[in-house]
């Protein structure tokens, strides 16, 4: 089996990036006196990672998502945060390399870890699983463009074999002529991770067709790409009107596209079929009034 390879230089840079460069600093913090019932917003806003509990600037505890769920399912009722918060937990320091954060998250199986200043324990930010990859990619982007090497080192060096790299992208509703911006980022990110051109191209084409669909019909949507050594799994979800007749929509040439879509060179009824053609495995589920989910799987082994 061919394993995905990623540039050696990229890996070295991932090892070196300090936590402070990719941590989220805009997370919601709470005071120990806040009530648990007030945390709903914070949980979501902090990507379901963790909610830091601060006294002044000092971190005195945290509510993990697991802790929050335990509270939700308990019969404790509404109590102050201080009664629920964890006081023993691992923290990261700003100058620690990202790879330490990866290992810690993997080890304890948590979704996020707080970052504190070395001596003072002053709260600085949060490293969370789901935005870590974004942070790493953004950071690589900044030091990037000097070199474009590939195929030097094993992908599995940065994550354990069971772990996935997850990338997610939100497609916001905007004029159709701007469609393609997200697919362009997806394409660039996959190249940055060192995936082979043939895989990236198929993913990018499928993503682009799907993005145009999201903007044409669904008012936007969400891309989630999960990667392991064997498979690229791209999920495209929307909360649009749904497709009345999926079988019909899959037929090449069948289209309900209005003129303004056609004027941009789309809407010829080839989109879904083309997405399917780019996939090794393709699934579509659609419910009227609820939305549509596409699942595109691409095998990473060479055929």
């Amino acid at each position, binding site marked *: 089996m061919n394993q995905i390879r990623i540039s050696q230089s990229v890996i070295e840079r991932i090892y070196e990036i300090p936590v402070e460069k990719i941590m989220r600093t805009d997370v919601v913090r709470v005071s120990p006196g806040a009530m648990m019932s007030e945390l709903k917003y914070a949980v979501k806003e902090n990507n379901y990672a963790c909610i830091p509990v601060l006294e002044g600037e000092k971190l005195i505890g945290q509510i993990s998502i697991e802790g929050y769920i335990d509270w939700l399912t308990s019969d404790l009722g509404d109590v102050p945060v201080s009664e629920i918060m964890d006081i023993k937990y691992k923290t990261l320091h700003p100058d620690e390399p990202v790879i330490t954060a990866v290992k810690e998250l993997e080890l304890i199986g948590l979704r996020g870890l707080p970052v504190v200043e070395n001596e003072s324990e002053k709260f600085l930010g949060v490293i969370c699983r789901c935005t870590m990859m974004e942070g790493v990619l953004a950071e690589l982007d900044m030091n990037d463009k000097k070199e474009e090497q590939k195929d030097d080192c094993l992908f599995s060096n940065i994550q354990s074999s069971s772990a996935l790299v997850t990338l997610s992208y939100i497609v916001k509703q905007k004029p159709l*002529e701007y*469609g*393609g911006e997200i697919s*362009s980022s997806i394409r660039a990110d996959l190249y940055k991770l060192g995936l082979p*051109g043939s895989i990236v*191209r198929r993913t990018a*084409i499928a993503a682009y067709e799907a993005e145009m669909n999201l903007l044409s019909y669904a008012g936007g949507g969400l891309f989630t790409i999960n990667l392991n050594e064997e498979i690229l799994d791209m999920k495209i979800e929307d909360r649009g009107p749904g497709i009345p007749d999926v079988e019909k929509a899959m037929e090449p040439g069948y289209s309900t596209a209005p003129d303004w879509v056609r004027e*941009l*060179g789309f809407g*010829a009824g080839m989109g879904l079929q083309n997405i399917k053609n780019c996939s090794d495995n393709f699934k579509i589920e659609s419910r009227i009034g609820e939305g549509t989910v596409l699942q595109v799987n691409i095998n990473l082994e060479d055929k």
Partner: protein
Amino acid sequence: MNIKELSQVLNAKILSNGHLSVEIKTTYVSDLMSDVLTFGREAELLVTSLTNRQTIRTVEMVEIPAICYTNGKQPDEKTIELAKSKKITVLATEFSTFQVTGKLFAAGLQG
């Protein structure tokens, strides 16, 4: 055929310098971007009379390094900027799509 020769054959203006070293062997002609995404994957040049941003996005995804607009049409500044940022070569010619196709075919390019 390289980009320089191409611009001479088509009497075309070069609006964006991408990878000028690219060698054009295969051309795809269409105004339908879905078709380019489906069938145009082997081409090094897209000939089209559509001039919106989606033409650039499409060649970016399919990795076609050069695009030639026909019928004297030119994309707007923003579209050209996008092409430049993606290192895509952009040409524009007064010839019609049919004429361009004929000239390229006569010059030995493949479809």
